[in-house]
């Protein structure tokens, strides 16, 4: 822990956490550079950089700015948003498995989107329905888990129950759709970045610009205190209930908008905070390093999904699902050995 003082202001930070955040950001940028340069029209990193800074031919400009950059930006934003939401969730429920995909929020977003798929609607309506579904599920879970405040395990169990109900509903909606739409819906449910344009990235960017500072600056110190337990946090002057509501709302919004942009990409919200925590070796929520790790993770996974099998592009959700699933099994074994499960 280092403290920086200038006049009346002082800033505490961990050099290692900053280093991890910067390292992950550089990694994400590196992946991004490769992603921008690869495709049916391969470009070297130098060409990409030249195009990005305003040079390059008209064709290169079109390919980078209209085709590849939107996808990259969407990936970065979705990764950062999911990681931030996952960190907040895991910290709030005080459990390393408490990620939004397990607690039913992403299933709610999926239900909203599937309703649009079955009824037929534009991709804009689909994104809007995903947001509405995610927020609605968040409200229902919060209301059901409420008993003189919302506590970690009640939230988890209610989330699991709601998620099981919604999984049934989602499966039913999937059988209602014609086969072609069903295939599209499964693709959406897996999480994919194919064909994402600026229209997908925009709303998420706006949400992230508003919520990330709110969470990072406004709530992070209090969140750290809340990990001590409600009583201790209250004694330290944290308005526990109000803060929990604000943080939950922010996390649900982030998850919903991320799902609207790229579909419910699985396990990024679970894995990114863990990786960040292991790298920074810092207790408490590592919000900023997690965001950087999440962005790097999703861009890297997308790159892998596009390039791993020649001639066969996988949706990014398949890659994160496989990586996250493997990590999860390892985590369960580890928790078990440590006697925490």
């Amino acid at each position: 822990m280092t403290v920086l003082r200038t006049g009346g202001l002082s800033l505490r930070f961990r050099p290692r956490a900053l280093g991890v955040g910067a390292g992950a950001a550089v990694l994400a940028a590196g992946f991004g550079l490769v992603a921008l340069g690869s495709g049916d029209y391969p470009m070297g990193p130098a060409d990409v950089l030249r195009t990005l800074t305003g040079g390059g031919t008209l064709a290169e400009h079109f390919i980078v700015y209209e085709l590849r950059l939107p996808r990259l930006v969407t990936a970065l934003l979705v990764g950062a948003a999911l990681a931030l939401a996952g960190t907040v969730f895991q910290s709030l429920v005080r459990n390393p498995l408490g990620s939004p995909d397990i607690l039913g929020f992403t299933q709610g977003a999926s239900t909203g989107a599937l309703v649009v798929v079955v009824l037929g609607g534009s991709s804009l309506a689909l994104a809007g329905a995903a947001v509405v579904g995610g927020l609605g599920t968040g409200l229902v879970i919060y209301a059901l888990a409420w008993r003189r405040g919302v506590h970690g395990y009640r939230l988890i169990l209610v989330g699991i129950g709601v998620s099981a109900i919604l999984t049934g509903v989602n499966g039913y909606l999937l059988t209602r759709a014609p086969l072609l739409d069903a295939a599209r819906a499964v693709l959406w449910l897996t999480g994919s970045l194919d064909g994402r344009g600026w229209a997908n990235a925009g709303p998420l960017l706006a949400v992230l610009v508003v919520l990330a500072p709110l969470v990072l600056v406004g709530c992070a110190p209090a969140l750290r205190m809340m990990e001590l337990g409600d009583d201790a946090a209250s004694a330290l002057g944290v308005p526990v209930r109000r803060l929990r509501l604000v943080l939950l709302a922010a996390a649900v919004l982030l998850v919903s908008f991320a799902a609207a942009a790229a579909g419910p990409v699985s396990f990024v919200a679970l894995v990114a905070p863990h990786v960040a925590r292991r790298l920074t070796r810092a207790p408490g929520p590592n919000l900023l390093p997690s965001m950087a790790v999440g962005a790097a993770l999703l861009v890297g996974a997308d790159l892998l999904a596009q390039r791993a099998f020649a001639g066969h592009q996988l949706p990014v959700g398949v890659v994160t699902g496989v990586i996250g699933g493997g990590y999860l099994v390892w985590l369960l074994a580890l928790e078990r050995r440590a006697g925490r499960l």
Partner: protein
Amino acid sequence: MPTRDTAAPPIRRGRRAARAAGLAAAAALLAVIVVLSIAVGAKAMPLADVWSGLLHRDATEYAVVHRMRLPRTLLGLLAGAALGVAGAVMQALTRNPLADPGLLGINAGASAAVATAAAFLGVTAVGGYVWFALLGAAVVTALVYAVGGGRGATPARLALAGAALNATLYSYVSAVMLLDTASLERLRFWTVGSLASADTATVTRVLPFILVGLLVALGAARPLNALALGDDAARALGARPALIRAAVIVAVTLLCGAATAACGPIVFVGLLVPHLVRALTGPDLRWLLPYCAVLSPALLLGADVLGRVLGRPGELQVGMVTAVLGGPLFLWLVTRRRVAQP
């Protein structure tokens, strides 16, 4: 057991009579639902037609009853009993009120194995599914037991671990469906949990597995009761804890694997019924298991009939109906009771 029939005090004898009467009433309820399950559908049949359709080869209803409704009903009976009894013995074994084959990921394990078989190995019929489903169920059962059998495993933590496994396995299943449109077409109905595809071959295929599983589970009722007192007390009562656990795991694998292979993953039946029954019989597995074996099929078939009525002219898949019926009970259970402790 110091008190046998002759020495039983009147209150105990009265309770036993009440339980037996309750079981008879449950069986009567099941019989009514079985008749409904044969009668209700796209072509509704009055009772007289059901009867003639069952017995008279030349009746117009014979084909409908024997090709479609009867196998479907039989499969519902088998799968319902399998899931209910599996849930009850899982709850006893892990001493965890939230243990349910669906919630803990056992059915999802079977689904993942079946999806693999369907997409990559070209297995298309239930006859082939069943072995893969058993394998998948066995792996996840062992995993769940390894995670949840320990001392520190609270209901909430076990449920969370199960939910995590579920999420992993279902993301794998949807990835498989995505890569292969043919398996999407086959599996998207199956993954919801449905009795609609039942035929005689399916029923005869899973029948032996479920029967053996049921027998093993029922046979384990008395030693499992002893095990509820703790390993040492169970040993003192003559039970062999390791053997019982192995037997129960085998039974759960057989029951869940076969049920999932035939009708897809169905959640909450294994949770809902044992909890309702426990309110009637108390925790004694010698009564709990037979009640579950009778009432779970009643629930599953009832949900199936309800799905056929509500979903006219098509039908709602039974897995969805049970999820929507059972989910609120689960929510009630976890918000009301002490389950929600860390």
